[in-house]
């Protein structure tokens, strides 16, 4: 009987030529869940932690709604236990030589390879994503990342010699790869009902000697601050929605841990009239409708090819297949009710604002699937255009010229990734350099490699990871970053007179009177009056920032040689004024010998950064790509720097030099207690690009809290003085890293 049925089907398919199901068995995933009695807890210190009296949430198949397991929700005690485990194993793990850590991570990569089927079926089963993406991309990438960073752990032993390993709290599993190699241990907080990180932790735990280095607890995002507040947590990395990241930034302002944010999921595709349109359409499919990216796509199309692109795109959309994620022939799975509702809300709102919506195929409203959707004609000023595009939507809008494309593309607060489609090399490169995003692919979209750093700028967060910069765990910063020293010491009152120091605010290359027309006395260590400095106010700061912005394009486009020349000229000027500066410092209570050393070191710093200007970026070679990936270092724009009170001259120079060297313009507030040496430095050089003004100090906490508004990256000293006279702290690579932002530029080649 069975044979007949088969036969009749074959006959029918011969005429219809339809696709059949190609299901991937999920038996192994269910079997693993069964080993836990379908009841998942947390994985801490190499064993399962299933405390009693906790609420649990069901883990469901997003397509069938079938209950797969129940997952315990963590409470603060569980978080504390996990952090305790991570701290306990930190000592052992971080004191291991790099080679041992590398070996362990390689073994972990091997374990992933051995269990890849289990990993991909489980992930696809619970997330509903198309298994092919998980199988062919995510799992191999996870393995490659571990392998890559194992090598880093091995080779960067020396480079990291001075680093304190960090006990770590993270809110997303994808970051852990970058943290283990340099000797950190990790606590991962995953959203409820996501078993794959737990499985990964179990596999890592079963490896033996270092069970506590990776701990996974599942719980609501509200536990984030609880985790961050645990003693010993040095760094928090968060991947998720922009608003959640903002809230976390506010909550953690002024706290010990470093916060790295990787926010939002929207991507951008820029299609010019000289592109291979058919290939670009495939790029759009890769970006939005292949279950690769978690978010939607903003699509900018040059007007000349708008009609052609729309026709091809709609035709292509008709061939996309939605279905059960575990089906190997499916392009898009389902992502649960929340994602579907979000997409539906966006579509309805866009329609009500006059947008055209094209959907390939229609799904009934109770279906778990959401069809690929193309939104066009959305007026640029409508509220929808401002919002982040959700999965699986593509929002298309036209542009006229490349220049306009850049303006539109950069006119959003998001700065994650983008691709440029153009066959004209000059145009493609100009667009790629001009886009304010972390990653740009030329004529491709969504390529990844462990050797290429990933990150963003603007509201997409400033957390960079991957690539050679292991030390990238420290957040770099984005445009308009803010360095602040927070120690606030009030000048002692007293009186006496001396040769008049330079007076005024140095803005746009010259001294000018402060807006408030008021002055502040500066006294030396005995309390006698050294002189008066101009007291800057909010209005002066505004003026200074404006001047800095005006100067920015010019300074940015200066050749490295010109930048170096300026820093060297500054050094020479400093040297000429050495006696003067030494006496100023002396009067501030610094010993003669130390004062001399400070000035000498300041001169050296300026020269050193001048020399380092040349070393910008590099080209990487990655597997499976013919052509280079350029790792660019771009200036952040205008930096606000508030100098600390320690080492009044040296700190000032050490902060100023890297900022200028990397092409930034600067608004700088010198030490409140001893600003005069800084003003002396300004005086001799006619420097349009270094506006300077004075303002009251701000506390570290306030700076961090305020940065949540537009998520500008900030770097504060939290009131702890830095050893500016030490090479590592005063001129180390960290300063250079923070003075510029990275961009990865993928350049596939071939004709």
């Amino acid at each position, binding site marked *: 009987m069975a*044979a*007949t049925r*088969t*036969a*009749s*089907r*074959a*006959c*029918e*398919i*011969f005429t219809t*030529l*339809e*696709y*059949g*199901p*190609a299901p991937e068995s999920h038996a192994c995933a269910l079997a693993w869940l069964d080993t836990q009695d379908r009841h998942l807890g947390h994985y801490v210190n190499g064993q399962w932690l299933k405390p009693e009296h906790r609420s649990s949430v069901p883990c469901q198949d997003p397509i069938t709604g079938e209950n797969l397991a129940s997952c315990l929700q963590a409470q603060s005690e569980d978080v504390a236990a996990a952090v305790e485990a991570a701290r306990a194993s930190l000592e052992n793990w971080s004191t291991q030589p790099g080679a041992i850590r590398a070996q362990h991570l390689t073994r972990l990569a091997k374990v992933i390879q051995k269990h890849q089927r289990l990993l991909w079926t489980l992930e696809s089963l619970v997330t509903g994503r198309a298994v*092919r993406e998980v199988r*062919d991309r995510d799992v191999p990438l996870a393995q490659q990342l571990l392998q890559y960073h194992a090598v880093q752990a091995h080779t960067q032993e020396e480079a990291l010699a001075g680093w304190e390993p960090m006990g770590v709290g993270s809110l997303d599993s994808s970051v852990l790869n970058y943290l283990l190699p340099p000797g950190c241990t990790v606590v991962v907080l995953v959203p409820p009902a996501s078993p794959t990180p737990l499985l990964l932790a179990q596999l890592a735990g079963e490896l033996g000697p270092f069970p506590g280095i990776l701990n996974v607890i599942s719980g609501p995002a509200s536990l984030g601050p609880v985790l961050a507040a645990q003693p010993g947590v040095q760094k928090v990395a968060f991947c998720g929605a922009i608003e959640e990241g903002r809230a976390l930034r506010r909550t953690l302002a002024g706290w010990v841990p470093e916060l790295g944010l990787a926010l939002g999921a929207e991507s951008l595709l820029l299609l010019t009239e*000289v*592109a*291979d*349109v*058919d*290939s*670009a359409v*495939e*790029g759009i499919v890769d970006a939005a409708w292949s279950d690769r990216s978690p978010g939607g796509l903003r699509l900018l199309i040059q007007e000349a090819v708008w009609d052609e692109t729309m*026709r091809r795109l709609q035709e292509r959309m008709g*061939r996309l297949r939605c279905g059960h994620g575990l089906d*190997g*022939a499916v*392009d898009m799975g389902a992502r649960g009710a929340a994602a579907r509702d979000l997409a539906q809300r966006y579509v309805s709102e866009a329609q009500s604002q006059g947008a055209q919506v094209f959907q390939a195929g229609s799904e009934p409203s109770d279906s778990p699937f959401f069809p690929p959707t193309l939104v066009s004609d959305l007026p640029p000023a409508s509220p929808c255009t401002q919002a982040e595009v959700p999965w699986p939507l593509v929002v298309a809008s036209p542009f006229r010229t490349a220049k306009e494309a850049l303006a539109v593309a950069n006119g959003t607060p998001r700065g994650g990734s983008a691709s440029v*489609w153009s*066959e004209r090399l000059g145009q493609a490169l100009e667009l790629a350099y001009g886009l304010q995003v972390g990653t740009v692919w030329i*004529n*491709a979209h969504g390529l990844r490699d462990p050797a290429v750093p990933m990150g963003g700028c603007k509201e997409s967060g400033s957390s960079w990871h991957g690539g050679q910069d292991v030390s990238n765990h420290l957040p770099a910063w984005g445009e308009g970053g803010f360095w602040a020293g927070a120690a606030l010491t009030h000048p002692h009152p007293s009186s006496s007179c001396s040769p008049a120091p330079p007076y005024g605010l140095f803005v746009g290359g010259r001294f000018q009177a402060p807006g408030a027309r008021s002055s502040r006395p500066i006294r030396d260590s005995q309390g006698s009056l050294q002189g008066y400095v101009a007291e800057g106010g909010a209005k002066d700061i505004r003026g200074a920032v404006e001047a800095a912005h005006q100067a920015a394009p010019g300074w940015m486009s200066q050749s490295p040689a010109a930048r170096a020349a300026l820093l060297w000229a500054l050094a020479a000027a400093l040297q000429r004024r050495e006696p003067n500066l030494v006496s100023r410092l002396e009067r501030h209570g610094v010993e003669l010998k130390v004062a001399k050393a400070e000035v000498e070191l300041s001169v050296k710093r300026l020269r050193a950064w001048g020399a380092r200007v040349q070393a910008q970026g590099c080209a990487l070679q990655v597997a499976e790509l*013919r*052509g280079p990936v350029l790792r660019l270092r771009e200036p952040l724009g205008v930096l606000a720097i508030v100098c600390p009170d320690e080492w009044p001259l040296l700190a000032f120079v050490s902060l100023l030099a890297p900022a200028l060297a990397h092409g930034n313009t600067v608004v700088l507030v010198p030490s409140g207690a001893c600003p005069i040496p800084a003003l002396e430095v300004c005086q001799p050089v006619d420097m349009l690009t270094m506006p300077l003004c004075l303002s009251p100090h701000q506390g570290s906490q306030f700076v961090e809290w305020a940065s949540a508004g537009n998520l500008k990256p900030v770097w504060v000293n939290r009131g702890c003085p830095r050893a500016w006279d030490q090479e590592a702290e005063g001129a180390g690579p960290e300063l250079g890293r923070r003075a510029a932002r990275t961009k990865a530029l993928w350049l*596939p*080649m*071939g*004709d």
Partner: protein
Amino acid sequence: ESISKQATEIWISKIQVNKPAVLRRAEQIQARRPVKKEWQAAWLLKAVTCIDLTTLSGDDTASNIQRLCYKAKYPIREDLLKALNMHDKGITTAAVCVYPARVCDAVRALKAAGCDIPVASVATGFPAAQTHLKTRLEEIRLAVEDGATEIDVVINRTLVLTGQWKALYDEIRQFRKACGEAHLKTILATGELGSLTNVYKASMIAMMAGSDFIKTSTGKETVNATFPVAIVMLRAIRDFFWKTGNKVGFKPAGGIRSAKDSLVWLSLIKEELGDEWMKPELFRIGASTLLADIERQIYHHVTGRYAAYHDLPMS
């Protein structure tokens, strides 16, 4: 007829093909549409009906041509077809493809077998096309006289590599005329065209000049039917259809040996052009050993066992 020189220039001048992106697409297509079980069996039978069963060897004689023709008529063992309930669907290969000198043998053998499978003949100085135009045209006429109803011509690569698109157009027009009623399949020899952009341009010119099919390669170049090249040609076919409303067929040839490959080719057609192209009138596979592997796979589907080579009749 009405397509002027100007059109020749306009339709091909603005074209952009990005090779790395096409290569990525080619890689993806092979992993994105697995076809299993009954679907696989049905699709494989469809592939059989699209095969131009080919022998193009110096040692071809009447006897192996006759064997080939019988295999074309009975490509799959009768009992296997019965098990699939497909025995009365007239499953044969799409055509038999031979050298011009063997056309008579093929026509005779097929007549003896009592079937109307068309005979295709390669022509125009196959495979290099480095002979005089006059003899190339004469070759076509003679093959048609001998009874070939499909002519696979090779284009003059010199004209492509030197950018003489109008001259190429004129040559293919002459081939078209020489074919008369016979179908014209134009072999682009893509392995020798230098770039994917040239592949697109040559495809477009061949279609504009009136080809019924465009074909990837002769099977004699070092690089033959590859997926990236196919993607470019299929996109050209779609563009031509959108511009003129004419459906032109596609024939990959050379190096297609496994049943799995033939499934990928079918799904590639389905994805890029749609179901209406998945039939012998618009899709052919030029192959000789492919059929044996497909038959083995069908044997496995029906019986659950793999066939030894002696279990299945040879061609």
